[in-house]
């Protein structure tokens, strides 16, 4: 699967060269939209893309932020402190307040493709070009997204640099683990989204780090989502070697935490609990943070195969990734302290 990923990465070429005047961009929904050549004011309603915009150095051109980023994102204030002054443009259901949007007068709007018909509706109502992007947890799509957003904002070169950096780091991990046979890849159960029995049906950082996500291949509980509710007995039958819990919550917000899992009488017989191999990982909601996803992959790789990554200092690597992406020093360390992710074999 990693091989396929890399193949796709090589095949990716920047499909659109910016011309004079407007650029035509194709978004995640397959819509072709004409984007003005110079984008000075951009409004992103998709947190993942907002982070990419900051990574591309176009942070100052943001004119607003969405509700999710404003209320629930712990990383964003760290990477873009100026965000506190940005008006909140959308409501809890994700739908933007149209009058505020018009008042802010962006040159470009980026929306989430998960709301049916929203991008078109928004475009019609505001008369502004609206692009819909999401990677939905796939590295391949994440890279493409970075390139497309870069093209739309006239930052193609910077986008290319970031994409290359991301690609190379992932490739480095892959090289160190590609010869590990399937049975030596640890069986991992991932618990996300506030309930121990809720698991993603596919999580690329786990696969990229040469682990086996046990919930892979199951049907999601709700159409269009990536989450599945598994029964406790199923988890016991799987008997995972490692348990990963959703760490992107503040400690006070966590329903599922390491202490709780280790002391739960129902999970006593699980290998991971007996060996105390229960850790936090970052995870995602609908939206990823590209830098964090990369660091997470490196972190998990070291966690799963410590003998192959002994020389890697994850905190140092993480800080470097954050420096390259967001131009900040000690960023990863700051985040992990904020989320109180304890030290462990992953370091």
């Amino acid at each position, binding site marked *: 699967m990693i091989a396929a990923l890399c193949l796709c990465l090589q095949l990716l070429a920047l499909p659109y060269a910016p011309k004079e005047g407007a650029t035509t961009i194709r978004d995640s929904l397959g819509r072709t939209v004409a984007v003005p050549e110079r984008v000075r004011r951009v409004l992103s309603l998709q947190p993942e893309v907002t982070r990419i915009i900051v990574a591309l150095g176009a942070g100052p051109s943001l004119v607003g932020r969405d509700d999710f980023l404003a*209320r629930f994102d712990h990383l964003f204030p760290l990477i873009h402190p100026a965000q506190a002054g940005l008006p909140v443009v959308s409501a809890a259901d994700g739908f933007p307040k149209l009058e505020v949007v018009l008042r802010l007068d962006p040159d470009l709007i980026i929306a989430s493709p998960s709301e049916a018909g929203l991008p078109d509706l928004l475009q019609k109502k505001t008369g502004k070009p609206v692009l819909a992007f999401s990677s939905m947890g796939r590295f391949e799509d994440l890279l493409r997204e970075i390139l497309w957003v870069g093209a739309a904002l006239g930052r193609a070169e910077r986008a290319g640099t970031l994409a290359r950096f991301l690609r190379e780091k992932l490739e480095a991990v892959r090289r160190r683990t590609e010869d590990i046979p399937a049975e030596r890849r640890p069986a991992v159960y991932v618990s996300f989204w506030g309930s121990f029995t809720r698991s993603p049906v596919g999580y690329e950082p786990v696969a990229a780090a040469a682990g086996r996500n046990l919930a892979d291949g199951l049907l999601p509980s709700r159409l269009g989502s990536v989450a599945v509710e598994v029964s406790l007995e199923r988890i016991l039958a799987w008997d995972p070697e490692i348990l990963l819990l959703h760490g992107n919550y503040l400690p006070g917000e966590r329903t599922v935490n390491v202490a709780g899992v280790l002391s739960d009488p129902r999970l006593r017989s699980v290998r991971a609990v007996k060996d105390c191999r229960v850790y936090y990982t970052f995870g995602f909601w609908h939206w990823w943070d590209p830098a964090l996803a990369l660091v997470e992959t490196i972190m998990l790789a070291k966690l799963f195969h410590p003998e192959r990554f002994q020389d890697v200092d994850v905190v140092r690597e993480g800080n470097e990734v954050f420096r390259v992406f967001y131009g900040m020093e000690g960023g990863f360390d700051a985040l992990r302290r904020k989320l109180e992710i304890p030290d462990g074999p992953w370091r």
Partner: protein
Amino acid sequence: MDKKNRKSRRVLGILIMALPVALFVLSLNVGSYSIPAGDMGKTLLSLVVPSLRQDVPQVHRDIVLHIRLPRLLLALAAGASLAVSGAALQALFRNPLVNEYILGLSSGSAFGAALSLVFLGRSFPPQPAAFVFAMVAVMAVLLIAGRPESGLVSLLLTGVIVSAFFSALLMLVEFFASPYALQSLFYWLMGNLALAGWRDLALALPLMAAGLTLLILLRWRMNVLSMSDEEARAAGADVRREKWLVILAATLVTAAATSVAGIIGWLGLIVPHLVRMAVGADNRIVIPLSAALGASFLLAADTVTRSLTSIEIPVGIFTSLIGIPIFLALLKKSKKVWL
């Protein structure tokens, strides 16, 4: 004809009473983690006899004691509670179309759960708040409508209004809730026995037991109260006090069941109907049999969902999918006189 009828009724009655026990034994052996039936006996014994503990794998004991037993007990208790509550309210309001949620209970419960999940944080269980607001909703309906002796229509209307009010409040809370809290709420609303552990049952089970006991003790009285208020009063019943008592008990058990298991529909409507079709309308028999059949019904539904797939499907979906066609069939059959 009379004799033969009575005999077949008695047989049916005994069968229904035995059903929960049989289903319990069956359900104990169902689950994603397969425990061979032979080992099950040993495992159960080891729970009671400490010296046998070495012979039985830890994981078997954990599954039986901490996963299956609480879940099965919850299914039995909640099923019995909802069915009896429905039967009692049907007798009280003299209308077999009444279900346990008519007095606004489900909306109050949902609102309480949402409030708790959003404001008290995700580590605090939503059960207590769900319970409290369920009671609040019913009390509101009773106080607004006047008295339990008020006509059914006025109580129903008040119930609809109070329900709508709490639904609106619920939507408001959902609006301000984080996506994380919303997900939990969604699963709770669908009716879910999956995460029931002993801690969740610690308060709910005794409440259900107490309320059920009260309702079972009052079962003959329900016959009297199911006559018109005038007739009941003429016969010497303190109509107002007795109706309050029944409604309180019914609300108690339904609120307790709903707070842990979420909203599971149709049990209180269908099970009493089926029981009356089988054994007649005398509440001395209908109430206990409703408890047994309701318990069996929910347990069976839960076991079926568990055995079909290792993915958790909310049991409320099943009771609706099965319940609605049965309800329609019943409606078609009994056109004139109700059962």
